[in-house]
């Protein structure tokens, strides 16, 4: 058998109060794609950060090409031939694409002057390789999220590393972009690179990976060749139990009461003449390619994006929103897609986060009823099975899935009429996803409505009563959740009949 290029043995990593990795061993061969999977908080990102010198392990050793190494700085990792696409975007918005691509290893002439001609040429070549059609001098902040992700991938490729690590690179990509990425990964493997691939979308793992390593709670569950595995087996390794990917339906049929309605709603260049309704007990899905106006549409319902014409009705009453507060007062709740930027105050504790939208409900003369608040926090944490369950834990140290639960939990005491979700399960593991779907159903069972935007077709097909497809700012198609198929959604997304 081939000698592993990269090998870590017995790695432990402790954070205050958390053991993120416990005696994990892992290896990666050149010319193969190795999947690293596990639930949120299993320790995947932590392992990666150790591999590239961002963290130092508490214990354990790393071998490269058979000889032990200590990777103390990302610079060193790059020199050893390891480059990483981190889970969080690592781009500088105010800098150009070219500057970002070569950050830290710019081609230079004498005296440290940047060789701008070479930078441009190489940048164009890299961008073409990942299929992003932008000028290298464009500022990153002017790119779409998917383009940013592709630039991030190009950045990793720019270092000509032997090992390329991708921590959830596909979370922000649509179907086509994912296909493109899969092709790149296969190419890398074919040209004798090693790829470590992390994703919560198991289909992708089956598409490209040769080997799968599963982590659970910071411990190694096992490493297996893909041929020995199927979907159920992987899920069981990850969660310790079997999960069925069947539809999640409501207990009661959808009611007649229209909780949310728009009539000819338009906003400048984003979307035009949108008419939708969300009824009590209903989950309505919204899908579209990147940049078709769906994100802005959801935000306009929350008063964050200004509409230019048309009318919104909540519970059959006409409303106008100047800001989020108006929308909340009318009975809406919004779960944004970038939870760390828009969903959570990371330096505050869980209780403070969860209490935020409903501070008013537990106060007298401006003073907070601490007892009431504490018990509310405990109840929510118990109901949503948040780990860790200490409400005084800082939001920052939670894994993605648990953070997302908190973002949803903070709205529950407000008892909103309609929940607006934008990518509710991005970067969330299978187990937590399941819990979030159940949560969505439990709010609709209690008479609320849900409007959700997602790029994950499987998810929409599983939970939605109706699915709307947006294209170039219009709703072009509507399906019943039980009748739609992937193929139908796909063709509709492309604006084909």
């Amino acid at each position, binding site marked *: 058998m081939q000698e592993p290029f990269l090998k870590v043995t017995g790695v432990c990593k402790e954070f205050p109060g958390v053991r993120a990795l416990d005696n994990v061993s892992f290896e990666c061969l050149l010319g193969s794609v190795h999947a690293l999977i596990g639930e949120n908080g299993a320790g995947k990102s932590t392992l990666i950060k150790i591999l590239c010198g961002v963290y130092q392990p508490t214990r354990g050793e790393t071998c490269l090409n058979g000889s032990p190494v200590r990777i103390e700085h990302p610079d060193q990792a790059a020199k050893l031939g390891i480059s990483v696409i981190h889970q969080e975007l690592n781009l500088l918005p105010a800098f150009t694409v070219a500057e970002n691509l070569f950050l830290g290893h710019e081609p230079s002439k004498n005296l440290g002057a940047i060789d701008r001609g070479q930078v441009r040429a190489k940048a164009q070549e890299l961008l073409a390789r990942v299929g992003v059609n932008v000028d290298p001098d464009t500022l990153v902040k002017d790119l779409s999220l998917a383009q940013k992700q592709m630039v991030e991938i190009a950045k990793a490729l720019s270092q000509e590393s032997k090992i390329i690590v991708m921590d959830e690179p596909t979370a922000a990509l649509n179907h086509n972009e994912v296909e493109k990425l899969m092709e790149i990964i296969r190419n890398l493997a074919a040209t004798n690179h090693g790829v470590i691939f992390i994703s919560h979308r198991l289909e992708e793992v089956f598409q490209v990976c040769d080997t799968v390593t599963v982590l659970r709670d910071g411990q190694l569950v096992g490493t297996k060749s893909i041929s020995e595995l199927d979907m159920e087996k992987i899920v069981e390794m990850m969660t310790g139990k079997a999960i069925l990917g069947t539809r999640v339906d409501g207990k009661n049929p959808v009611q007649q009461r229209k909780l949310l309605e728009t009539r000819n709603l338009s906003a400048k260049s984003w979307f035009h003449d949108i008419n939708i309704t969300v009824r009590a007990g209903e989950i309505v899905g919204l899908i579209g390619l990147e940049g078709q106006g769906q994100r802005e549409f959801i935000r306009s319902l*929350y008063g964050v994006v200004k509409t230019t014409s048309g009318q919104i009705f909540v519970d059959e009453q006409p409303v106008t929103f100047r800001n989020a507060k108006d929308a909340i007062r009318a009975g809406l709740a919004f779960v944004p897609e970038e939870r760390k930027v828009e969903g959570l105050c990371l330096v*505050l504790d869980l209780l403070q986060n969860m209490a935020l939208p409903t501070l008013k409900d537990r106060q007298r003369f401006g003073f907070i009823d601490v007892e009431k608040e504490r018990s509310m926090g405990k109840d929510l944490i118990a109901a949503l099975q948040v780990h860790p369950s200490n409400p005084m834990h800082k939001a920052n140290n939670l894994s993605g899935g648990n953070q997302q639960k908190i973002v949803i939990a903070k709205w529950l005491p407000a008892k909103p009429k309609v929940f607006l979700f934008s990518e509710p399960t991005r970067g969330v593991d299978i187990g937590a996803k399941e819990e979030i779907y159940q949560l969505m159903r439990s709010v609709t069972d209690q008479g609320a409505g849900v409007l959700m935007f997602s790029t994950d077709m499987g998810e929409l097909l599983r939970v939605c009563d109706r699915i709307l497809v947006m294209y170039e700012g219009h709703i072009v198609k509507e399906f019943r959740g039980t009748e739609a198929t992937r193929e139908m959604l796909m063709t509709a997304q492309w604006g084909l009949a």
Partner: protein
Amino acid sequence: MARQSEITATAKSSTGVAGFFKNANNMKLWLWVATLVLIVISGIISPGYVQPENLLRLLRQAVPFGFIAIGQTLAMLTGHVDLSVQSVTVFAGMLGSTYMMGSDANLLSAFILVAGMAATFGLLNGLGITKLGINPFVMTLGTGIMLDGLTMVFTGGATKGTASPILKYIGTGRLFDFFPVSILVWIIASVLVVLILKRTTFGRKVYAVGANKKVAELSGIHADRLIIGVYVISAIMSTIAGFIVCGYIGTGTLDLGDDYKMTSMAAVIMGGTLFRGGVGGYAGTAAAVITITALTGLLTILNISEPMRRMIYGAIILAVLAITSRSKKE
């Protein structure tokens, strides 16, 4: 789950005595230790200095600084900064004594008038920063310079009038001939501020806006309004400081001995409030204010040259920052 029990175990250990020392939020403790050390050194140098009477006098000297630092703490908790505090304090003292003319009958109206004008500048700070997006540092520096000018325009640069008897009592008087009134005022204000920050919806909003303005807004908080409010409060706190200085020295003055705009920032950060906002509180700031005042007092009574004194002052502040920053790290 195995990890779960570990978390509760560590959570428990951090509530013990050992944990208290390790606890990330306990720069306060280090500051009290520093203050104690300073007082002990002072006591060794001159035994008379550490009698309760004199310690109270020392504490009294910290009161105006303490009020200025309330505003600065609020501003910095929301992730902002207020450099106009010094100018407002001078403005308040000068105009206050001019309008008061030494009469108790005018005290309240003078305060309301001056606080109103100062609040207008707080409002201006808040509006410029939130609505126009001007950098807080420059905005408040600019309004500070404007206020310096207005103080002189309004008063001609000379102090007319004096502090009224009640204000003098607040500034220099003692309860039962022992406990300085101004310390009592400060203690009451401090307790209120700490309570408000920890226990009221307003306080929560301050932390939330400082931690993440966008999240706060999406959770239904008028972040801009809150920030404007914080600047108005800061202006009013500095007004109070100006009045207390006026009561303490009996008159308004163009020239305060200290540069409070800088030292207040230093005190807030030494007290454990994060520059980016969202973490910290007034208890730490108050401890830092007392530490700095005790340090100044000690350096005064040491018979050393001014350059030495300044270098030692700078070095000790550096050392305290180094220690507190270490206790902030995990």
